């Protein structure tokens, strides 16, 4: 273990956190503003990855493929909203859980039907395919840096949007008191659609950005969804700031944990035990973190009535 390895994993953690933030930001808004338990959010992420990969392969141009893929993913998201989600938002949480669970099954299997179960790949654009030297002994991939940069830009934009614009104020108000906002004559339905569409776009974008780094296969939606949940629980439902902090925290803890847990354990346990226990402990870390946060603050770090 040396400084450059630590820096590498820390940067990876940040990058991972950014992806989680992009997914969680939309989800936390949907939960907070619309009180809608959308388990199918991970599907949006997956659609972003699959469709971008498809179009990039078709057009042999990343930028074009990305644009087309995001547009297609968004279109499908809107379709889901109109046909299913719109009705579900008026129902109980239990029905929302069931309904969106059904949607996950449908879309996941549909993707398997269309694309087959074998993982697909998405090649990143040539311009960003290389690496740059960041410090002694550390060449860091440009694409991952791009993700970190993109995440920061989105975070800033979201903050500006929510804190400084009229729409943002409505979103914040809507998450605390739906009836009042409605009574003021604001079309709450339209606000909801806006929030949903925005969240879906962010998730699809995250999927497209993560695509080159992972294998694109039908279970990728599930994994990211659970993590997004943990992010939201830790950060507080409805809080963008919470999502940002929590996502980075989880990204770092998870990545550094997986990278170094076994090594750290070897300091106190035998090699054999450490190698066996290491991966298990690493996979538990973020849940332990979640538990610790909840003990101190049952509504999350920045939670409590959908504050931003």
């Amino acid at each position: 273990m040396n400084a450059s390895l630590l820096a590498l994993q820390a940067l990876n953690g940040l990058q991972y956190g950014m992806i989680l933030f992009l997914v969680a930001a939309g989800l936390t808004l949907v939960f907070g503003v619309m009180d809608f338990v959308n388990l199918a959010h991970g599907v949006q992420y997956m659609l972003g990855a699959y469709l971008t990969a498809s179009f990039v392969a078709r057009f042999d141009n990343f930028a074009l493929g990305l644009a087309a893929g995001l547009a297609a993913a968004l279109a499908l998201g809107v379709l889901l909203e109109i046909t299913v989600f719109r009705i579900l938002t008026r129902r109980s949480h239990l029905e929302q859980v069931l309904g969106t669970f059904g949607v996950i099954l449908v879309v996941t299997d549909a993707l398997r039907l269309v694309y087959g179960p074998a993982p697909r790949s998405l090649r990143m654009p040539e311009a960003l395919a290389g690496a740059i030297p960041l410090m002694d002994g550390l060449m860091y991939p440009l694409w991952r840096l791009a993700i970190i940069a993109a995440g920061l830009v989105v975070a800033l934009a979201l903050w500006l949007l929510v804190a400084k614009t009229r729409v943002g104020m409505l979103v914040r108000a809507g998450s605390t008191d739906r009836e009042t906002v409605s009574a003021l004559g604001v079309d709450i339905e339209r606000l909801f659609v806006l929030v949903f569409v925005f969240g879906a776009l962010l998730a699809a974008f995250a999927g497209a950005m993560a695509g080159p780094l992972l294998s694109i296969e039908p279970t990728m939606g599930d994994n990211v969804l659970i993590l997004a949940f943990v992010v939201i629980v830790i950060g507080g439902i409805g809080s963008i700031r919470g999502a940002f902090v929590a996502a980075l925290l989880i990204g770092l803890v998870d990545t550094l944990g997986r990278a170094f847990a076994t090594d750290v354990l070897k300091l106190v346990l035998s090699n054999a035990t450490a190698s066996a226990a290491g991966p298990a402990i690493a996979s538990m870390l973020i849940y332990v973190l979640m538990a610790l946060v909840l003990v101190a603050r049952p509504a999350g770090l920045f939670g409590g009535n959908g504050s931003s």
Partner: protein
Amino acid sequence: MIAAAAFRQDEPLRRPLRDAALVLAALAAAILVAWAMGNAWWLSFLARVAITATAALSLSYLIGQAGLVSFGHAAQVGLGAYVALIAGEYGVSDLTLLAPLAFATAALWSAITGALALRTRGVYFIMLTLAFAQMAYFIMQSLSRFGGDDGMALARRATLLGAPILKTDLGLALAALALLAAALIGFVWMTQTRYGLVLRAAKENESRALASGFRVFRFQLYAYALAGGVAALAGVLLANQAEFVSPSYMNWHRSGELIVMVVLGGATSLPGAVIGAAVVLIIEEALGHWTEFWKLGLGLVIVAAVLLRGAALSALLGRTRR
């Protein structure tokens, strides 16, 4: 307004017990018919129905009586299965030891995760139970000693006081039926006890329960642990039925399926959960014969059921913790 029909205060047990008896009789009859016809596949399938119904039943109790929507119930089932597997590796394979061990393990897991999850409400609770179940899933996945992601075969089927009652398909089916019967009657009875009354009151109006002097948290934690323990017992039988245990038993999709079964049968009806389990398993088998992409079909059925049943579903469901 909740459809109070399911809990008429004057003759509270008559209908649920009658429904329970009908459901159990139907299952028993099916098992006997399958055995008489020498159909091993059907016997095995019916055993799976009974086992799954027990797990769904325990979740139905949680959701319908306590108002706790757990999206991690499959982890409890999986814990039971793993107890059977791991104990078997160390030579323990008698049900008199496995049952209490599995129950206690799940109850302990519930006590710890419940202590945290029950401090939260609504959406937080649902997500927490999901996250905890995933944690269990990942832990078992990373334990290569017991098969890791691939899973591991059970050393041998369990015995009861030395007698190999689970060795035959009929034996297993009857054992599963027995567990289901005990759990069903037990849970139904509990709904009308003093404890059941408080639990139901807390589900509908927590501040009233608190103001009357009940520490709601404890009542709910108890329900959570009990439901988990029963699910683990089902898990032990599941391990024996499949003679194989893998982390997929804890997959959150399975938790979702359990919720589907509960809701399909009517979330405040305990015998209904058994019917829900049977229906879902039959659908899965039927679709599975027809296409590899049966999950797509199941998903469509679920979405349609939720969208279309609308008002009827809400009436049946009663209020869950929001």
